[in-house]
């Protein structure tokens, strides 16, 4: 089961929404939790017990902290247990995937990190202990965000999970957002991933300079559209259930700097690591060296978010080192440089980082860089890559177009100019997109 499945869009989602709004408001949290568990049971039944066990242990740790409220050691034990348990689950699951090729557990990273964050916030007394097991469990395993987030704080959604009245305009907006996310994920992300895999599967003797460039660019688009598509769908579904989730991506490929890129790419994950790790490491209060180290740690964690792989780690380190340079070496230069040049600089750094992301080892990544600039003795292009480009030219154009904020600017401008007409027009466009999506999914 996936959120782009027709059985989900036309059967499970409308039925869930109907039951959700048909029951009294007090019971809605329970209904949404039941829907989330049902979704998980359909998507990956083998992982359901792990999810339930994980959430139950986190909840138990939190109740333990409430019981031992006057005993700092006891509280520390509870939070340490929760930390060790969640980290253990993540490492164990990743090791099973990497070493034994086991099936990755759906949303493991999301529900463990969300549970840990809630327990940590309660430990730091930033919020009261969560007594209601339903809202706690719902916060951890709310089904739309299990794929790619966003990672959201309990405080930000608690009220919405309890009071969620039916608001038709939010339902329509949510449906629109879901459709946009599905297009990003299924059409753009899915399509460009196929292009990426086709290039990746080419025999080494068929590689060319152009194919290496295409490989890197296709991967950059694939990661962005797949993840941001998932997050937009999550936002849309949550909105339909009356919950407002934060954005996780904000046009990262038009960043002005690498730091700006991290603030636009996987935003909530970045905020999560800053909140839990960077702050714990005393931010930049211990001088530039310690701060640089902290930034590198955050960079590594941002890389490890994609999996336990040395190249992901290097990807994070690479981008982290540019953030350090920007912060301590050429901050003023960047500030004085025109926006267009800043964007070109950031895009170059980010695109080159995807050579690391694409490689299976540091050596292969270096090979990609060498091939991109024609030092690998490769041909400029061949018929195979020309065929691939000629078959996917529209997809590539759309990827470039939708990775910029042009559509956002145009729709905002239209809303201001003709509020009513634009609302009808955008709804019609969304309906047409849904029809096209349905056709493509058949």
């Amino acid at each position, binding site marked *: *089961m996936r959120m782009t*499945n*027709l*059985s989900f869009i*036309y*059967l499970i989602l*409308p*039925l869930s*929404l*109907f039951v959700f*709004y*048909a029951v009294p408001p007090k019971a809605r949290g329970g209904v949404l939790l039941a829907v989330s568990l049902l979704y998980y*049971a*359909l*998507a*990956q*039944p*083998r992982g359901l017990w792990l999810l339930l066990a994980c959430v139950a242990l986190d909840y138990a740790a939190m109740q333990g902290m409430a019981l031992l409220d006057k005993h700092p050691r006891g509280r520390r034990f509870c939070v340490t247990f929760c930390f060790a348990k969640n980290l253990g689950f993540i490492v164990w699951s990743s090791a099973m995937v990497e070493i034994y090729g086991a099936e990755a557990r759906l949303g493991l990273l999301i529900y463990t990190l969300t549970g840990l964050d809630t327990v940590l916030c309660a430990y730091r007394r930033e919020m009261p202990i969560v007594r209601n097991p339903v809202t706690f469990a719902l916060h951890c395993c709310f089904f739309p965000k299990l794929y790619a987030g966003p990672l959201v704080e309990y405080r930000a959604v608690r009220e919405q999970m309890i009071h969620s009245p*039916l608001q*038709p305009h939010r*339902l329509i907006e949510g449906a629109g957002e879901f459709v946009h996310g599905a297009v990003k994920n299924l059409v753009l992300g899915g399509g460009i991933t196929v292009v990426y895999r086709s290039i990746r599967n080419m025999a080494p003797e068929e590689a060319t300079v152009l194919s290496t460039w295409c490989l890197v660019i296709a991967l950059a688009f694939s990661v962005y559209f797949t993840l941001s598509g998932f997050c937009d769908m999550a936002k849309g579904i949550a909105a339909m259930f009356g919950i407002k989730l934060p954005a996780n991506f904000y046009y990262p490929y038009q960043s002005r700097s690498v730091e700006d890129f991290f603030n636009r790419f996987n935003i909530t994950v970045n905020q999560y690591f800053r909140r839990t790790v960077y702050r714990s490491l005393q931010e930049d209060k211990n001088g530039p060296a310690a701060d640089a180290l902290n930034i590198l740690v955050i960079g590594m964690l941002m890389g490890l978010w994609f999996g336990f792989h040395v190249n992901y780690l290097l990807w994070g380190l690479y981008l982290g080192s540019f953030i350090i340079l920007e912060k301590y070496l050429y901050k003023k230069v960047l500030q004085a440089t025109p926006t267009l040049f800043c964007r070109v600089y950031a895009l170059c750094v980010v695109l080159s980082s995807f050579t690391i992301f694409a490689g299976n080892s540091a050596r292969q990544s270096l090979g990609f860089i060498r091939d991109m600039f024609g030092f690998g003795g490769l041909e400029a292009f061949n*018929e*195979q890559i*020309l*065929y691939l480009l*000629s*078959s*996917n*030219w*529209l*997809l590539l154009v759309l990827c470039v177009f939708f990775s910029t904020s042009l559509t956002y600017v145009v729709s905002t401008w239209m809303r201001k100019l003709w509020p009513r007409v634009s609302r009808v027009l955008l709804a019609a466009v969304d309906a047409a997109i849904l*029809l*096209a999506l*349905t*056709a*493509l*999914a*058949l």
Partner: protein
Amino acid sequence: MLKEAVRMKLWKKLSRVACMLGMLCIAFLAISYAAEQNSSLLPEWGEVRGGTYASKLEQGLKANFPYRQKLTQLALDLKLAGGQRVQNQIYINKEGLLRNTDPPNKKITDKNTQVIMRFGEEEGIPTYLMLIPTASAVKQQLLPNFAQTYNQSRFIEDTYNQMSGKVTTVDAYNALFNKREEYVYYRTENNLTALGGYYVYTALGKKMGIENSSLNQFEIQYATDEYRGDLFQRSPYKEVRPDTLALYCYTRYPRDYVVTHHVGGEIKTYHTLYPVHLQEMDREMNVYFGGVSSITDFQIASPYSTRLLVFGDKTALSYLPFVVNHYQQVTLVDLFQLSREQAEDVPVNEYDQVLFAYSLETYSRLDISTRMEWILSI
């Protein structure tokens, strides 16, 4: 002011009810359409636990989705507009749909080659091998620019080289390639047309000692000119013209045919080479001798006394109507439908010639060795 507030309240309530009804309607439509043709969509515990229920539900819904045909057409048009000339492994072209043939599975082709060579050596019957290329190798003029396909010609040549001295090989590739501008492959089906079959028959004749009949010795009848084959079902591109099913009747020296099909424990007999009545049963391609069964036996009243055993696939539909005229008996065996019991009913030694004739796709993807072992062990 009060009226306005009451109106707003009413409007809000109405819109909420509309939303609820909308959600229910969508779900109800989905359920009713899914259940219309497939009543087993309700979950079973084993399916849910095994994780297969979600895909079953999805497939059920997809199969019975309202306006499915039109939506599939829309998807195809959208993809074509995006520049994708290949969809579901099929090259889209107004002049015809061509299936892109994957590179052969070496393990399987080696096994198949070995078992045919063994057969040729052990049985002592003149044995022939004919590998028939697919349309993507012959009709290269219809492929999109820069498209690269597997080199079937080289594969056939390599396989034939391995066979040299043990089995006589038949060059169908050049026979078809030389006629590539003609209607030798169906536009909407991954198979040879009757005309393509005729050219293959001429190539066979040269090697098997058959005196080929010229085309003017046949009267051409048309079963239909609205045939849309398997490729069209997968990629329903409207611009491509439907196919014509041509029936080549040997009128110069008319023959009497008895075609017997062995399907499981059932036997079906037709007293014609072209049972056109099968068209009405929505099995249009079966107008060619009733289709391919595990064993299809042709008894022909002809001046010849030789018997031919053919191990083949659906490409036989195209060339066998020409070949049978030169034999007293021809038996076509589809190894992929053959059961162990049926294998005992194939008395290889009673035949004068044995032909292995497969499309390259069949030969390189499906393992014939196991079933050939059954026949060899008798």
